[in-house]
């Protein structure tokens, strides 16, 4: 009984569909309890700021850090403790399932991809004031127009990114071999057991730390506890926003994209009720920054192979590729923060902060949001249909071509026999 339970919940991966919807519900509560969005890139940018401070720079005087704040340490900020909780939750999940192995990149090309893709994504995300979370998954439920602009721009960006990643130069060098059923060495049972226990130790330590923090600040303690659950969810279900966009274009898979839309649909009504109770939704400039940022972000995450949320759990699983993505993200975000003053006015701050609840009235805004979510869902279905129809016709063309070739071969055969006969 315990073994089956253990296997189902701690070892086998969870269904991403359920997990994304759970994340949607949880992110609504997160807003109600902490007043902030479930988001990560803002905090990563602050970490970049802290690194600069160690080297004697004064990023706290930069305009961008005045907007997002750079006070205290990560332990004093909702975003900071939430991310620490997320890392802890991911780590516990990785250890429980023994999914820890140093996986080296297969080539230097991949490292370059990770670093450059990560930088483009980090830069774009911060230009648009949010990544797949604050400008998409938790942004759209805030009824801020900029999140919708970002989402469609990011979708377009991932299309371009997909074209780049599939260029022959970047292809995988794995080759097809004859035969199969290789023996996969069984992991050492002692190691499995030890890691499972260590996972619980990490989990318990993180919960204890949250409770300790809760003594001085309820909000921060709760943020950290919820961060742990977010961490468990993203690792155990391998939630990947990048694949939601990218794989629609590459393989026609729409599973994750549909899950994310449903996740947002359940989150929307939660945020709406908090706003009706008097909370202020987080609204940002609906300017060209959301378009350009979304495009760059979309291109970057596909080249890198993961976004800000995606690299967190993969890095802890030992996928070295994603350590580089993480570094790239923070560097890219910090570069944007440095150049913010140059681009801020024309691209962002001169534009209005538009909230759909103000634009169409509360009920109208809610209706428009659900309408847009429904429309996105239909668009995905149409794309899927189009994609597989195209696949089918290509397949048929291929078969027809092969048949033609065979006929040509048969016609050419007598001549070939004749030549070989004369040669003999």
């Amino acid at each position, binding site marked *: 009984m315990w073994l089956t339970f253990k296997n189902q919940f701690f070892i086998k991966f969870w269904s991403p569909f359920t997990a994304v919807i759970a994340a949607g519900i949880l992110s609504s509560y997160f807003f109600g309890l902490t007043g902030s969005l479930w988001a990560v890139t803002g905090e990563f940018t602050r970490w970049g700021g802290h690194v600069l401070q160690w080297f004697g720079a004064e990023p706290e005087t930069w305009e961008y850090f005045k907007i997002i704040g750079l006070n205290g340490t990560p332990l004093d900020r909702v975003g900071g403790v939430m991310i620490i909780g997320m890392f802890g939750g991911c780590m516990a999940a990785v250890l429980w399932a023994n999914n820890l192995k140093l996986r080296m990149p297969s080539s230097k090309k991949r490292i370059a991809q990770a670093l450059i893709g990560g930088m483009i994504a980090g830069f774009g995300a911060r230009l648009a004031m949010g990544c797949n979370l604050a400008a998409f998954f938790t942004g759209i439920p805030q009824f801020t127009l900029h999140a919708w602009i970002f989402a469609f721009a990011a979708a377009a960006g991932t299309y371009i990114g997909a074209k780049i990643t599939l260029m022959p130069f970047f*292809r995988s060098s794995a080759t097809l071999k004859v035969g199969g059923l290789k023996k996969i060495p069984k992991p050492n049972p002692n190691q499995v057991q030890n890691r499972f226990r260590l996972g619980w130790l990490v989990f318990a330590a993180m919960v204890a730390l949250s409770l300790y923090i809760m003594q001085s600040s309820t909000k921060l303690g709760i943020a950290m506890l919820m961060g742990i659950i977010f961490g468990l969810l993203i690792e155990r279900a391998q939630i990947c926003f990048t694949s939601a966009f990218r794989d629609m274009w590459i393989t026609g898979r729409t599973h994750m994209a549909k899950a994310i839309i449903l996740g947002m649909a359940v989150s929307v009504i939660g945020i709406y009720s908090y706003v009706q109770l008097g909370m202020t939704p987080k609204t940002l400039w609906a300017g060209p920054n959301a378009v350009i940022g979304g495009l760059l972000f979309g291109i970057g995450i596909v080249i890198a192979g993961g976004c800000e949320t995606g690299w967190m759990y993969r890095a802890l699983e030992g996928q070295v590729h994603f350590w580089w993505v993480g570094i790239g993200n923070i560097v890219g975000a910090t570069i944007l923060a440095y150049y913010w003053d140059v681009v801020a006015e024309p691209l962002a701050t001169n534009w209005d902060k538009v909230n759909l609840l103000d634009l169409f009235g509360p009920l109208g805004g809610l209706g428009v949001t659900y309408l847009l979510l429904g429309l996105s869902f239909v668009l995905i279905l149409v794309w899927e249909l189009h994609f597989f129809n195209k696949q089918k016709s290509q397949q048929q063309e291929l078969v027809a071509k092969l048949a033609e070739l065979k006929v040509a071969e048969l016609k050419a055969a007598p001549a070939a026999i004749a030549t070989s006969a004369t040669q003999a």
Partner: protein
Amino acid sequence: MPASIVPDYNLEIYGEPCPYPAVATLEAMQSLKAGEVLEVITDCSQSINNIPNDAKNYGYEVLEVSQQGVMLRFLLKK
């Protein structure tokens, strides 16, 4: 694992991020003849959400999905 399944080909993909394992698998499947079985072994955890799903979408049969530590094994039939 059912002993009766004998894969005709195998594909090992280690250390590669998405989308490469899924793309390599689909390309490999294209070169198979109907009825042949491909075995994919990878340490890309994300593949759990990609490879079986894609295989079904492309009309292939997923014979087995198994997880051994970080290693994932998929048996796909064309």
